[in-house]
């Protein structure tokens, strides 16, 4: 039980960051895809820049988790089709709903109940992917 509390707190912090950075805003996502503001590019750019530096250092010093196990940095299997096609399909949905999976849950906490429709539909989308998986090019 105790081991889950830290993830709960991390999630709360994530929800606050997503809200205060306005990354959960449908309007911010429209603005980003219309190239009319630097805001979202700034957030993602700093997150990736600092994230890459920190990940590099973690690997360099062979950092471990708090339990002494290997960090979860498994390389992703190389392919083009699944990432490009899957990514494009996700991008269509991201621009429509103005939310990626993380913000979906934070918006629910804002009391925007209609976002539950998106969560349900996204779960169904994942289910359909699971059913069609063997027939899709990867």
């Amino acid at each position, binding site marked *: 039980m105790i081991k889950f509390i830290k993830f709960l707190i991390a999630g709360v912090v994530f929800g606050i960051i997503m809200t205060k950075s306005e990354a959960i805003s449908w309007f911010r996502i429209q603005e980003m895809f219309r190239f009319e503001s630097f805001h979202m590019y700034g957030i993602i750019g700093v997150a990736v820049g600092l994230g890459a530096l920190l990940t590099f250092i973690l690997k360099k010093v062979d950092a471990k988790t708090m339990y002494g196990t290997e960090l979860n940095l498994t390389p992703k299997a190389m392919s083009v089709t699944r990432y490009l096609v899957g990514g494009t399909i996700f991008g269509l949905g991201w621009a429509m709903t103005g939310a990626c999976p993380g913000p979906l849950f934070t918006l629910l906490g804002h009391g925007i109940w209609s976002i539950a429709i998106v969560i349900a539909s996204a779960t*169904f989308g994942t289910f359909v992917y699971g059913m069609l998986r063997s027939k899709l090019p990867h």
Partner: protein
Amino acid sequence: MIEFLSQPWHWSIAGAAIALLMVLLLWFGGKFGVSSNLRTFCTLAGAGKVSDFFKWDWKAQIWNLVFITGAVIGGFIASHYLVSSEPLNISESTVSYLSSVGITTPQDFSNGGGFVPAEIFSDPFSLKGLIILIIGGFFIGFGTRYAGGCTSGHAISGLSNLQLPSLIAVVGFFIGGLAMTWLILPSILKL
């Protein structure tokens, strides 16, 4: 402190906070990637009976369900106790474009929202509401699993780990996002 946190955060602060959170999750023995929770939802609903894709070690992912539960609570806290006095500072050109397709950009937080357009989210059973929420949601769930991750897993975690597959996925995110924003969404919004 509350007052300090309540002002809108600069993008550089938010970006740095996300990178630190990603490292924290790695140290905790998890990783930053939200969309795999949707696969867990399917497994919990019994999808393992019809597809082997949903027969997996979901119990090792319970921490991630706890994390998104926290994300809901964080949204509640931020929307109740850390509300900014200023509206979202959306660029003038976006505001005027949206108004031309019938979407009003909120100028204050008085109705508790201000993050999503009322025309879609307060009227989810309108034609455009249904199309956007249901089809958009489907694309999110199908696309993220096909691509093996979303913004957190590919754009933040994957790019930070210099993964070429993640870069390809992010290129895809933008191909889809730009096509939707420029070519398709304007027509849906005008419905």
